[in-house]
């Protein structure tokens, strides 16, 4: 589904990604871990070109998204993204947050989008917040709404950029629960996170990144039980 070939990214001479090769198949839940500054968020943000790669190729559903001629907006409709800071649209109600993109992009009529939004809100138990504004909600509620906002576009893959890092500890669970549900429904997911429990329980594959490269990858079981690379071992020893 996603194929990354020799992906490189530099910011003003600083090489953040130094040749990433990776293939992500449909239905996989790939968890990306690594120390901060290792390039994992940049890697994720390159996948939908929020970050412009400096070199290499990224193929998504048979299209090279780094090709300047490709319609990136159309491709992004199929790649949901969830941010560390939620990024709900502050001036719109919860329901409008969800319906904005599907209606503006003429994927749904306003009535269809409304129905979809209510259905999604019901699913996460926040239907009564449909007319509330983001600033009136807790972080956990905001993040769950951000997730269903992305789901409203019926994406083929969901990208999560440290979705629980900005949350108070007691709200991490509700967000992870929703992500676990998504995983169980078969959604393809790429998750950058520090939640090792999530990586262990939900991931089908764990990638360890450091200094702009994928140093090691394995099934969660093997990855945590039997890390090969010394730096992986060092990293795991610090956080587990």
């Amino acid at each position, binding site marked *: 589904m996603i194929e990354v070939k020799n992906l490189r990214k530099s910011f003003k001479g600083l090489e953040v990604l130094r040749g990433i090769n990776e293939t992500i198949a449909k239905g996989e839940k790939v968890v990306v871990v690594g120390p901060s500054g290792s390039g994992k968020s940049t890697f994720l943000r390159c996948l939908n070109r929020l970050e412009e790669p400096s070199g290499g190729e990224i193929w998504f559903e048979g299209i090279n998204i780094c090709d300047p001629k490709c319609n990136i907006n159309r491709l992004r409709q199929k790649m949901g993204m969830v941010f560390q800071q939620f990024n709900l649209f502050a001036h719109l109600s919860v329901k409008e947050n969800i319906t904005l993109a599907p209606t503006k992009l003429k994927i749904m009529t306003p009535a269809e989008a409304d129905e979809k939004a209510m259905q999604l809100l019901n699913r996460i138990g926040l239907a009564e917040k449909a007319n509330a*504004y983001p*600033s009136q909600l807790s972080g956990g509620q905001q993040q769950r709404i951000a997730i269903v906002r992305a789901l409203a576009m019926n994406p083929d893959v969901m990208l999560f950029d440290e979705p629980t890092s900005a949350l108070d500890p007691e709200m991490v669970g509700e967000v992870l629960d929703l992500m676990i549900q998504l995983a169980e429904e078969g959604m393809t997911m790429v998750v950058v996170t520090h939640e090792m429990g999530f990586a262990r329980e939900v991931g089908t594959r764990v990638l360890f990144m450091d200094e702009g490269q994928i140093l090691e990858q394995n099934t969660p079981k093997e990855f945590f039980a039997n890390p090969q690379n010394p730096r992986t071992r060092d990293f795991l020893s610090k956080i587990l």
Partner: protein
Amino acid sequence: MHAIYQNLIAMDRWKLILEGLGNTIIIALGAIVIGTLIGAAMALMRVSGNRVLGGIARGYITVIRGIPMVTQLMIFNFIIFAPTGMPKLAIAIVSFGVNSGAYCAEIFRAGIQGVPLGQTEAGRSLGLGRAQTMWSIVIPQAVKAVLPTYTNEFVVLIKETAVASYIALMDLTKASDMIRNATFNAWVPLLSAAVIYLCLTLGLSSLFARLERRLARSDRG
């Protein structure tokens, strides 16, 4: 009492004041419309990321903000529009509009850039294009944020129009000054003008304050 009669009632002098006030309002309203349009265009040019457009906007803002309003007004009146025979009122509207445009541009640019980048990224990640994201997500939030400074620009503009008398245009200040010249009484005409300006600016401020409160709906926690 006699002074008030002499300065405001006798010889229909209140009509002079009214005419001056009318011109002041017309200039201010016309100029804020032009200024807002120019300002919006310049602000969008500056944030467009296009070097040429950004450079043009930057140059415009630098030049206009670096020259006193009175000087600009006279340049427009005695040089640029001198051969056209355009009515003074129209010249004043354009001059003040062009001037205000530079200030509005900076206000709007600050407003647009003040909207967190994450809002844009969220919009783009959903598949919205640059323009769609700008219009549906960034600008509505920027408008709300700039309202206080924008109101201030409007208030400043109303007061600035007093220099229109430099091109012999009969605005509120000019009218009161003419009465002063005729009656040799400075108190009544000038204080009348002052009170009228104050009413205008206070009225405007409270109008915008109400609008601000309505727009603040989504901020209430």
